[in-house]
């Protein structure tokens, strides 16, 4: 299933609501939550994570795990507010489409 930018970003914020995670774990959570429906090219998630960080909706920090550098993302306060807003917008949008399509 193809994902546009806005819903993907909303979903990334949502999976990070549960707690901080690195990119690989974010993708796993996304796949688990969608029951595998969103089988996206995993590499395309990283630019979205970077955009969200530049918008200060996510924060990140580097750690060292097993000799490899790992970047862990977490939701900022601004990210939480934005997530609540996007959720409300999405529900309104989905409800309207549902009402029309049936």
């Amino acid at each position, binding site marked *: 299933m193809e994902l546009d930018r806005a819903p993907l970003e909303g979903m990334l914020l949502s999976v990070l609501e549960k707690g901080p995670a690195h990119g690989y774990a974010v993708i796993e959570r996304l796949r688990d939550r969608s029951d595998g429906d969103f089988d996206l090219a995993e*590499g395309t998630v*990283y630019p979205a994570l970077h955009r969200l960080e530049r918008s200060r909706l996510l924060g990140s920090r580097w750690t060292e795990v097993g000799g490899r550098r*790992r970047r862990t993302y977490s939701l900022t306060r601004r990210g939480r507010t934005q997530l609540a807003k996007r959720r409300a917008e999405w529900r309104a949008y989905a409800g309207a489409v549902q009402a029309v399509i049936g």
Partner: protein
Amino acid sequence: MIDRYLAELAARLPRRRRTQVLAEVEDHLRQAAEAHGEEEAIRRFGTTEEVAVGFRTPRHLRLGQLLLAAAVASMVPAFYGAPENWLPPAPWPEGELPFSLAWKRDAILVLAALAALSTLFAVRRLALFTGAGAAGLASLTAGVLAVEWSDAVPGAPGWLALVGLVPGLIAAGALYSATAPRAQSSK
């Protein structure tokens, strides 16, 4: 295999972000390879082109940035490079650029440079503020400057008033870049 993929990706990534992105991608691929094998990890990750395109500045934005940089760069020699008594129709009555014009010239350049820099470095919010600031202040200042310039120097050509358009164009570019949608979709 992963090393070859990373080398190919490195060649496609913007230099500014390369080191951090590669470290992050390598961590992902090694972890995925432990679970699925290298070939499958790379297949799931996507082609290097697919990944790199997400990190690139969209073409229309890059063009805007280049135009902004060129516009600012062209203002510096125009305002500062020429001897003060050289600008047409020299000489100035007082022998040098009047102070009332000099500080306005500096204000325009500072605002234009801020707008351009914030756009070049894609600081969206700053670009928006400086762009709006430049649009309001610099255009007004430059307009006044151009008129005063013409008044201060008898016989100054009318086209000098066009100088007032330059910061306005820069500000418009900054605003456009700051507000333009960055269309990208992820598969």
